[in-house]
């Protein structure tokens, strides 16, 4: 049932001008390639990485790049290349899980507000506005200070404020569709609200939803790595990129300069974030014909 729906949607998508435009976009190709490489690296991390990411080699500490350690080692002699390879798992997990949590809170609330209207709409949108006005990172830091660090807590902490964007988008989409004749027709033949939402409202909102998801992915990675960098996210020695930079920041200059240790994880973050930003820009332009020319 759901499988058929997805297949129909994909079939429709492949024929759409948006997809044809998207396919020709160089940003889409580059972004897709980067994301694909990172996903495969994450899946096959144990094959790609030459060493265990956490296992120390104290005799080889703070080394530069060499044949033995592609990117050198950190203060405990852990292989930086292996740590960066395993770091892809954290980055992708944060991105996907955070989007999933945010969307599963925001999308139903937005649908509810847009579809019901009136008082419900008013209440939900008040909460959404208040949430959007809050400094998300500071709320997230306070949450982690309360409940402790760790990957899943970081995701919950960032979802506290992050869902609001999804709610606002879905409300707008629902309002735009609600006045259409086919919704009226569906109501006239006595379709239930649930059917109308799942069959008419949701499918019409999928494109902007995908764009928003692609665009929140890099934001999620940046925020989560910043929290780990502050020491209020994923904690060392776990091979998370922000946590690596947390450790390396003390080794930028004297007395023990190892700047490359700080440079590689940063580049890893940039490449992945850039990949998703490319994808997001290309998707947005493809779905929004006004921006195309």
């Amino acid at each position, binding site marked *: 049932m759901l499988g058929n729906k997805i297949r129909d949607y994909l079939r429709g998508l492949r024929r759409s001008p948006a997809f044809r435009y998207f396919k020709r976009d160089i940003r889409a190709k580059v972004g897709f390639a980067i994301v694909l490489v990172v996903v495969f690296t994450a899946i096959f991390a144990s094959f790609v990485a030459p060493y265990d990411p956490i296992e120390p080699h104290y005799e080889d500490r703070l080394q530069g790049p060499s044949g033995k350690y592609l990117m050198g080692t950190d203060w405990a002699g852990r292989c930086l290349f292996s740590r960066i390879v395993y770091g892809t798992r954290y980055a992708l997990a944060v991105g996907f899980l955070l989007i999933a949590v945010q969307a599963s809170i925001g999308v139903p609330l937005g649908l509810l507000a847009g579809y019901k209207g009136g008082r419900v709409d008013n209440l939900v949108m008040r909460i959404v506005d*208040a949430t*959007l*006005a*809050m*400094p*998300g*990172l*500071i709320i997230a*830091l*306070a949450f*982690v*200070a*309360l409940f402790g660090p760790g990957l899943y807590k970081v995701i919950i902490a960032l979802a506290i404020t992050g869902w609001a964007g999804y709610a606002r988008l879905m409300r707008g989409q629902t309002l735009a569709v609600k006045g259409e004749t086919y919704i009226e027709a569906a109501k006239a033949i006595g379709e239930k609200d649930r059917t109308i939402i799942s069959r008419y409202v949701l499918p019409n909102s999928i494109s902007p939803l995908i764009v928003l998801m692609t665009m929140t992915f*890099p934001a999620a990675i*940046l925020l989560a*790595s*910043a929290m780990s*960098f*502050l*020491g*209020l996210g994923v904690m060392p020695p776990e091979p998370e990129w*922000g946590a690596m*930079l*947390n450790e390396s*920041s003390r080794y*930028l*200059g004297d007395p023990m*300069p190892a*700047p490359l240790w*700080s*440079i590689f*994880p*940063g580049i890893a*973050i*940039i490449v992945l*974030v*850039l990949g998703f*930003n*490319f994808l997001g*820009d290309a998707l947005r332009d493809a779905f929004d014909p006004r*921006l195309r020319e």
Partner: protein
Amino acid sequence: MRFIRLPGGMYGFIIRRLLLLIPIFFAVSILVFMLLQMTGDPARQVLMAQGILEPNPEQLEAVRHQYGYHRPIYIQYIRWLTGYPSADPNQGEDPRVMTRGLLSGDLGYSHKFQRPVKDLMLERVPNTLVLMGAAFMVSLAMGLLLGVIAALRRKTWADYTGMGVALFGVSIPNFWQGMMAILIFAIMLGWLPAEGYYGLKWLILPALTLGTAQAGSLARMTRSSMLDVLRQDYIRTARAKGLRERAVVYTHALKNAIIPVVTLLFLRLPYLFGGTVIIEIVFKWPGMGTLLVKGGMGAAGGMGKDWFIIQGGVLMFLVLAVLANLLCDIAYAYLNPKIRYGEGG
């Protein structure tokens, strides 16, 4: 000074909006108050800040009574807010440690720093505001410049380079950019100091780093807004009646294109607050972010938590966010009459 003349409906709107601050303030104060309660046992947190990591039951009980944590929670909240009812020695409450209330500026005493939280904050808030103000200016100048140039030279190398830089700018983790700035300009070249705040020279690197974080998205927004405006009929009219291109661009196009950009700028202020916290840690800036993360949360090299500091820091950033939102709404109402008279308030 003459009374500022505002468009019709503005006064009513501002008054409605200011009245709304009262419930918002209560919501914020309850949130901040609850932070300490949500730790499970405030007395244990107070003792931990004093360095007693594993207190025995007697110590906990003593502190609980000294600080009045044995009372019902609504009494604790009212007392935390107003200072009343004042300490009752018959119940073992100690007037020396009892809060005099948020409304009289008492945020508690930091055992870690041996100072009242209020004093710690008063020293650091100006530094944070200086950093944020400078970063705001940097982002505004860079964002507008990049965006306008890219829009005017659309589909030329200037556009592609500018937008490439902007995209790169939004893809860099700001804290890493700060680390690289320290590495290049402080450690390798030795041009600028990297840590602390002792003068204007110390402001340059953190302000530029924090400013560029916002400049990227601002430039992208400016460009698309500018392109939108340049397509409008009144621009064609302006050109048709023979205005010089410079007049068309600067007086007609830019003025209209800047409205959504300014709105975005205010809407994104909460991100600036979060960004400040991170950049302060990177550059060891003696501001509220460092106090909150290092002093309060015990991260980034600070030892142990101090919840009175966390409450103070979170309160300050929430109040700033509320004020930014207020400014944003007022600016928006000023520009858009529909909101002034409408339901919104």
